[in-house]
C-alpha cells in the first residue's frame, strides 16, 4: 500500500503486455535468423527446403506441441509424450498387421481409431493421476515415461522391429509422403503432415480461444484455487488437457509410422524435450495461466529453423546438441530479461 491508495499504479498504464513483448523477441530472432541464412546460403530460401523439408519435419512435433500447450497453459507438464507416441506407433502397426487382409482404407481407419483411443487413454491416465491423485505432474509423467516405454517393449516382444504389412505399405506411406499441389503447379506442393498439423493447430486454437473449456484451461493455470471457488471443475479440466495431449501423440504417431513403416520400442526418445522446449521458448510460462498456441508455433519454428541451419552452416553432428542447448538457454534468458524490464 502506498499513499494515494487507489490511484492506478504507474506500471498499469496501457502498454503491450509482457507476453507480446516476449513473443516479439522470439519472432524478431526468427526473422533475423531467416534473413541471415537466406543471405548466406542459396538453399535456405527455397520452397523445397522451407516447406517440403523444414515444415514437414516440424509438423509432427508441432502436433504434439499443440497438446503440450494445453497441458502447460493449465499449469501442468508432460514428460511422457515420447513414450506415449511410441506406444501409439506400436499400436498402429499391430492393428495394421491384424487388418492386413482388409482394404487399405478400412485398415488405416481402424489403425487411426485404435491409436487415438490408446493415446487419449494414456494421456487420461496421466491426467487422473495429476488431477485426482494429486501427484505432481513432473513426478507423474516421469514415472509414466518409464511405464509407457515398458509397455511398448512388451508389445514388441522385447524390442523387435514391427513392420507394416506389405499390402498396406503404399497406402500408409501417403500419410507421410503424400503431397497436394497448390495453385495447380508442381513447384508449390504441401505434404500431408503439414495439412494435418494445420488442421490440428486450427482446432486447438479454436478450442483454446473460443470455447468455455479453453477459458477454463487459462483460469486453472492462472489461479486454481480461485477457479475452483468460482465453480469450475478444475480436476476435470486438468485431466482433460493430458487426455488431449495424449491424443495429439497418437496423431503424430500415425504420421510418423507412415514415414518409417515400422514401429520400435526405442523410438521417439527425447521427443518430449524438443516439444517442451518449443512451448517454453515460445513464451508459455512453466506455471501456466498465459501463453498460447501462436507462441508455441513461433517457438517451434525458431527451433526448426535452427535445426535446418545447423547442417547448412556446416556444424558437425557432434557439436549440434551443444548448439541446440545453448540456443534454448539464451532465448529463455533473453526473455527473462525482457520480462524484468517489462515489469519496471
Amino acid at each position, binding site marked *: 500500500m*502506498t499513499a494515494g*491508495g*487507489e490511484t492506478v499504479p504507474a506500471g498499469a498504464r496501457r502498454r503491450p503486455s509482457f507476453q507480446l513483448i516476449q513473443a516479439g523477441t522470439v519472432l524478431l530472432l526468427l526473422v533475423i535468423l531467416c534473413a541471415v541464412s537466406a543471405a548466406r546460403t542459396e538453399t535456405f530460401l527455397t520452397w523445397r527446403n522451407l516447406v517440403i523439408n523444414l515444415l514437414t519435419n516440424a509438423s509432427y512435433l508441432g502436433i504434439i506441441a499443440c497438446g503440450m500447450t494445453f497441458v502447460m497453459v493449465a499449469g501442468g507438464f508432460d514428460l511422457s509424450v515420447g513414450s506415449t507416441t511410441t506406444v501409439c506407433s506400436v499400436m498402429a502397426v499391430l492393428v495394421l498387421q491384424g487388418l492386413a487382409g482388409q482394404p487399405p482404407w478400412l485398415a488405416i481407419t481402424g489403425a487411426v481409431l485404435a491409436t487415438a483411443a490408446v493415446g487419449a487413454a494414456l494421456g487420461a491416465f496421466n491426467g487422473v493421476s495429476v488431477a485426482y491423485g494429486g501427484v505432481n505432474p513432473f513426478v507423474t509423467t516421469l514415472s509414466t515415461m518409464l511405464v509407457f516405454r515398458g509397455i511398448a517393449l512388451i508389445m514388441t516382444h522385447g524390442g523387435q522391429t514391427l513392420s507394416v504389412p506389405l499390402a498396406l505399405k503404399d497406402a500408409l506411406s501417403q500419410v507421410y509422403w503424400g503431397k497436394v499441389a497448390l495453385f495447380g503447379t508442381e513447384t508449390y506442393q504441401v505434404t500431408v503432415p503439414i495439412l494435418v498439423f494445420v488442421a490440428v493447430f486450427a482446432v486447438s486454437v479454436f478450442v483454446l480461444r473460443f*470455447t468455455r473449456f479453453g477459458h477454463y484451461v487459462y*483460469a486453472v493455470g*492462472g*489461479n486454481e484455487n480461485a477457479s475452483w471457488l468460482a465453480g469450475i471443475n478444475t480436476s476435470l479440466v486438468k485431466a482433460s488437457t493430458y487426455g488431449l495431449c495424449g491424443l495429439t501423440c497418437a496423431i503424430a504417431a500415425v504420421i510418423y509410422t507412415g514415414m518409417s513403416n515400422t514401429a520400435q520400442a526405442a523410438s521417439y526418445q527425447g521427443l518430449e524435450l524438443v516439444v517442451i522446449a518449443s512451448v517454453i521458448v515460445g513464451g508459455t510460462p512453466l506455471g501456466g495461466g498465459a501463453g498460447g498456441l501462436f507462441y508455441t508455433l513461433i517457438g517451434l519454428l525458431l527451433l526448426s529453423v535452427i535445426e535446418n541451419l545447423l547442417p547448412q552452416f556446416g556444424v558437425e553432428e557432434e557439436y549440434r546438441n551443444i548448439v541446440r542447448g545453448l540456443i534454448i538457454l539464451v532465448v529463455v534468458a533473453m526473455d527473462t530479461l525482457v520480462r524484468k524490464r517489462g515489469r519496471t
Partner: protein
Amino acid sequence: MTHDHGQATGVSLLRMEGIVKDFSGVRALDRVDFDVRAGEVHALIGENGAGKSTLMNVLAGRFADYRGRIVFSGKEARPTNPREALALGIGVIFQDLSVLPNLTVAENLLLGHEPPGRLPGTLNRRDLMAQARRVLDDVGFDLPVGAPVGRLSHARQCLVEIAHAMRGNVRLLVFDEPTASLGSEDVERLFEVIRGLKARGIGIVYISHRLAELPLIADRVTVLRDGRVVGTRDVAGTKVSELSHLMLGRRLTEMFPEKRNTPGDPLLRVEGLTRPGTLEDVSFEVRSGEILGLAGLVGSGRTEIARAVFGADPAAGRVTLDGRPLGRRSPRAAMARGIGMIQENRKRDGTITGLSVAQNIGISVMDRLAGLAGFLTPGRVRRNAERMIRRMDVRPPDPARAIQTLSGGNQQKAILGRWLCRDPKVLILDEPTQGIDVGTKAQIYRLIMDLACEGRAILLISSELFELVNLADRLLVVRQGRIVREMTPGDRTDVDAVFAACMRKEPR
C-alpha cells in the same frame, strides 16, 4: 519547526516531527508528528491510503526524500536505507513472514551469518546451534533450534521472525498488521510476546485496521487520515466508536446508504452446521432481502461458517435453500442453486491472474455464455463484462486489461461482478471491503443495499463493526465456532455494544 508533546511518563524513544512525504506530486504525509516511548505499544490506525505504511517506511529508511525530523533515543537520525535503520535499532516485522519454512530455526536466525567450518565453504553446525540459542536467550524465546520452521505454528514462526529482526540491538519494533492471517489462539500468543517485549523496555509500533484488537494490546493510539494525524488518544477510556469517527471523519455519515431493504420470507436455512474443532452446532436463517451480519473476532469461526455453507469446506449439518436441501457440498453445487461467495483473501481465492478483467468476470457464467459444444466468442465474454463493468463502475473500464493491474478496490468490484452475472439468490460476502479505499467502500455499501432491495439474501462478514451496524438488519455474534448471541442494531452507537459482545471471554 518544533513540537512539544509534553511527555510526562516513560522515556521518549522515538520522535518524528513534521514529516512530509510526496509521491509524484501527491502529498502522502502532511506534517505528521508521531512518538513512541520505551516500553509502550503505540497503535497506528487509519483507512487504506491514510499513510500508515508510508510513515513506517520513512522510519525504516525506505525513502531518502522526505522532510521533517526524526529523533531516536535522544539523537537526530536520518535513515536512508533499511540497513541504516536496523543499525540504529529499528526493526520491522512485515505482514507476510519472510522465514524459510524448510530450514531450521537456527539456520533461519543466522541466515547469511553462518559460522564457517574448518573447510572453506562448509559451516559449523555446532556453532550454528550455539549461536542461535544465544540469540533466542537474548530475546527470551523458547524455541527448538533444530526444528524446521515450517513445522512450527504460525505464532511461533512469528517469534522466529521477531528474533531475527532483533538480532542487532533493536529497541523499536514495528509490527505491520501482524494478525491479518492469524487464528484467535495465535493472536493471543502473539500478544503475549508483544507484552514480553514491552516489559523489556522495547518500544512497539502496532499498525492495524482492526479496532477490536487495540484494547488488548495498545497503550496509545494515533489515528491517521489522508496523511495527517487527526488525533492521539490513550486506549484506556477511548471508545471504539470514537476511533471510528476519527478514522472516517465526516465521511462516516455519508458512507452508508439509507436502509431501504425489507426482509421477506426465509430463504436460506442452516441447521446444526458442525465441523470438529472449528464449528459447533451453528444454526440460523437468512430471509430474502435481508442483510444478516456475522460479527466476531478474527478466528472466531465467521469465515468457517461461510465457507461451510458455500461448500468450500466440509461440514456436517443441513443447508436448505428455498425449502430444498443442498445435496452434495461443493462450490459448484452451491452455485448451481444460486449461492455466490466473495472470498476474504482476494489474491489467493478471488482474482485469476493472467486473465483479463472480462474473463475474470465471465468465468462463473461461461456455461451460460457458451453456445453449442461450448463455443464461445471473445466478443460475448467482452459484452457480458462490459455490462458488469458499467454496473460496478470498474475503473479503468477496459475489459481487456489484465486483472492484476487494477487497484484492490476495482479488482473487488470486478469479482462482485463475477457473482452478479449469475444472478445469485444468496450472496455471501466475507470481508468485502478489506484493503479498499474509502470511496470504493461507499460504492460497495450502496451496492450491497441495492442487492438486498432486489430481494437477495446477503450474509455479510466483516471485522469493521461499523459496516455491520450500519448495513445489517440482524447480527449474529460468533465466538469459538458458535453463535452466542443475536443482536438487532438500532442506531450507529451500537458499535460499542456489539464490540463488547464479540470480546466477552467464554467462561472456562
